[in-house]
């Protein structure tokens, strides 16, 4: 079938949602822009009446009443053709791609805001991802990210994201680029501004930034594995930039979500955890694909100007087929970079769980009741020493995460876990201060001896406080 055959005369138009269905969907999207809208429903335990609950309920209703066929939804944020399953989405997008009318997708937030996605560029070859193959390369950076956690063991999202961006640069571009934070910044801005007027300047800046690394690519990195087609380093730039964006997203966001799933025991190992995190909480939770010309898929006529909305994160329980665009990239035809990124995320989780024990602090959920959405930037995970190791005795002064953060809205058990860690640290401080007071350097003058007594006094106070806080922590933990 070609577009020249006037598909509208030989195929059906997609079913259109009713006015009430459109209104409910629009209201659910609009409500995502208003904080605390979910509070009454959550307090009453009515998950179906939360924003996510209403949205997924409506999608399930459309699936039932329209026989699983794509439906045209008119919302306050645009009119979308919504496929009801991963298989339909894959078929629809593949047909549009084949007809040459599929435009570059953009992301859609639950609140209806559009944002740029890193444009998909094929890598040119599949990257070998044997178990453990890339583990050694990322070990140092993952260890540094673990060590940079706060004093109470919790991860600072910005610090974790910076650490994982470093992992991505090393693995994708090479060891020489590991320190190049500007590269990640420029790549992120280029992705976010995809489709905008400033995109050209951003990609030019990204190209300039990547050029020195690609001129002599690190053979141990992904860039070094790409086929040399004689087109020069500039040709590989877009593919490497796309891989960098996708791997950063997976290593930072998906890996942290996987650690949270592991912490509550809903999955068994790193591979399953990353797979489940990607299925439930894909980085590209919803994407809009513009159609630049009419085409027919099966017996469905899709008109010029249609926007196809594929939102795997909005009803993850309804489709476990695993079909459809990658949750990390959004490309309809699959993405080798996304598959590689999934492997990197698994290696990150494997390395973290080998070193420390993840504990979920917030939000509160269990293996039997996983949340509909899990934004990695609001996720609070703590790392505890694996069983049998001594408690945390790091000095955090001088580190970006040294300043204590305000903690609120957690469960008593989560507070108990945090307070227990603080009690351990206070006890370690008591030992450190006492040991420092024992240094012979204090003997030299009156001030030194005074400071020694000060240190001993604080050591005693830390020990007392540790005991008090530990007792309270035990109570809180229940």
């Amino acid at each position, binding site marked *: 079938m070609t577009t020249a055959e006037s598909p509208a005369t030989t195929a059906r138009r997609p079913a259109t949602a009713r006015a009430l269905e459109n209104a409910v969907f629009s209201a659910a999207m609009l409500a995502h822009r208003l904080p605390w809208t979910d509070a009454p429903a959550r307090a009453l335990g009515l998950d179906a009446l939360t924003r996510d609950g209403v949205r997924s309920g409506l999608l399930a209703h459309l699936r039932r009443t329209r026989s699983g066929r794509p439906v045209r939804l008119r919302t306050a944020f645009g009119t979308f053709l919504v496929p009801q399953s991963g298989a339909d989405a894959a078929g629809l997008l593949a047909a549009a791609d084949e007809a040459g009318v599929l435009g570059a997708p953009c992301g859609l937030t639950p609140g209806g805001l559009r944002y740029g996605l890193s444009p998909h560029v094929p890598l040119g070859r599949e990257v070998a991802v044997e178990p453990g193959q890339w583990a050694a390369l990322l070990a140092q950076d993952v260890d540094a990210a673990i060590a940079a956690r706060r*004093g109470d063991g919790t991860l600072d999202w910005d610090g974790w994201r910076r650490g994982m961006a470093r992992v991505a640069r090393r693995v994708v571009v090479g060891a020489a680029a590991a*320190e*190049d*934070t*500007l590269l990640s*910044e420029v790549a992120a*801005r280029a992705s976010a501004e995809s489709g905008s007027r400033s995109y050209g*300047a951003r990609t*030019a*800046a*990204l190209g300039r*930034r990547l050029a020195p690394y690609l001129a002599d690519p690190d053979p141990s990195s992904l860039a070094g594995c790409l086929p040399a087609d004689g087109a020069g380093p500039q040709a590989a730039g877009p593919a490497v930039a796309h891989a960098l964006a996708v791997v950063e997203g997976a290593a930072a966001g998906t890996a942290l979500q996987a650690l949270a799933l592991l912490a509550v025991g809903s999955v068994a190992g790193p591979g399953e955890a990353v797979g489940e995190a990607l299925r439930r909480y894909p980085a590209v939770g919803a994407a809009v694909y513009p159609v630049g010309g009419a085409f027919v898929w099966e017996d469905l006529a899709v008109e010029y100007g249609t926007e196809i909305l594929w939102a795997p994160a909005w009803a993850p329980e309804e489709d476990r087929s695993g079909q459809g665009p990658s949750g990390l990239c959004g490309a309809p035809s699959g993405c080798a970079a996304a598959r590689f990124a999934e492997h990197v995320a698994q290696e990150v989780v494997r390395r973290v769980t080998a070193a420390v024990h993840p504990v979920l602090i917030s939000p*509160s959920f269990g293996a039997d009741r996983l949340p509909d959405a899990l934004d990695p930037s609001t996720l609070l995970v703590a790392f505890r020493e694996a069983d049998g190791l001594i408690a945390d*005795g*790091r*000095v*955090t*002064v001088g*580190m970006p995460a*040294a*300043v*204590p953060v*305000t*903690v*609120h*809205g*957690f*469960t*008593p058990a989560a*507070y*108990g876990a945090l*307070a227990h860690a*603080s*009690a351990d640290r206070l006890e370690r*401080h008591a*030992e*450190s*201060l*006492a*040991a*420092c007071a024992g*240094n*012979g*350097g*204090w003997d*030299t*003058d009156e001030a030194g001896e005074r*400071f020694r007594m000060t*240190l001993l006094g*604080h050591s005693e*106070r*830390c020990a*007392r*406080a540790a*005991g*008090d*806080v530990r007792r*309270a922590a035990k*109570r*809180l933990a229940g």
Partner: protein
Amino acid sequence: MTQVVDGTTGHVPAQQGPQGAGPGAPERTDAELLIAASILLADAALTAKQAGAELTGALSSGRFVLDALRRPGWALGTAVSCVKALTSPAGLGFGANGGLLGELARMAGSVTYRRPAKVAMAVDAFAMRIRAVAVEHPNLDSPLARRLTDAMVGGNRLEALRAMYALVERLGVTRALTTVSPVIMELLALSGLLDENPVNDDFSWVTLAGGVPTTDPFLGLPSSLLGYLNPGPGRAERADADSILEKVLGTSRNDIVSYVNDIGALGNHGLVLLRRVACADGQQRYVLLLPGTSFGLLSNSTPQDLVGAFDGLLRTDTTYTRAVKQLLLRSGLPAGSELMIVGHSLGGLTAMNLAMDVDVASTYRITHVITVGSPIDGKRPADHTTQVISLVNKHDVIPMLDGRGPASPNDIPDSWVELSWLDESYDYPLSHAPQAYSDTLRGELTTYRDQVNKLITAYDGEVIGNQPYMLRDK
């Protein structure tokens, strides 16, 4: 000494016995040991603060209330246990903080002069830092200066004011300021912790943790407020060099002393300079010279005013940076061009702020940032390959304002080149003038001059254009 635990091992110097000082020399506690102990105490103080916040958060959380309805016995026992931990005089002390209830409790404690464990440890950590600095700055160990620092550590502000007055009376304003400048951040932090104002404590905690404060030490106002005092999109217009400037620029070359002299000749009334250089390797490169603050008025029509200086210290997007971005756009500097920025005082801060700007750093390649007497240690360029060179006279008050004093736990990156010296020829403000720096680099510290010049040889070549621009706020 018993083994110090884990990561703390690296902070405490090796076991020392009593030091055998030479005849006549007073024995002093080692500065390294004092700094190590202050870091341990600071970490303990921050942990005590965190523990207090966690217990307060637990007690005041809605979920605890909901659980209490279901399990009143457990809730009562837990509440008693938490309150006991939060108020035990031998433990956390009056340790509640965080959240609405916690902050109200903390404020109540602050205005009633309670000194919880976290504050006591923080105060002693600052006291140790001050003592450590005094080892290398003997002026701080004079009876008058010690009277001031002891009063601040004791929280006796009236006595501190008297001591400051006595210090000024004896030494004069500029010498007194210079005397306390190495520990100015510690003194401000102590004042914030121990005064009756409970909303300015963030400054002290961030200073204690080795960070860069984003609030003022007196009222606790956020630095973002400075943006309202320093508004304007920034504007750049071509200007002509007057005869004096023209003469100085005529002899200028790729030499740090020459750049500092050029900045001195540009003055502090809004003029900056963009230089085009046809370099020896055939490439065209650019040098941007940014002068510092005009001290005449708090705020004037140019970005080079006192408000702009504080804005540049605490934030990156200022009228100065916006005006310079206009300049770069207006001058048609090609994307990808190599650029070196040299700035004095506020000009150095602005150079770093421009280097931190992702848009600027990705459009041009900022190869070097050279700052002269600028408090830049809390800032980091966006491009890790940017070579930062900081020239600091330790007798100059201004470079200390970034919070990194001699005893601070934070340090600058290894890749930076910081060249510092102690030149007591002039007190502040003369010690801060570009001419004072130029004199030093031309005189006894020519090795530093050579060292800097060696790092900027890529800019050797023929000057093919010197274009001054007048910068305005609006």
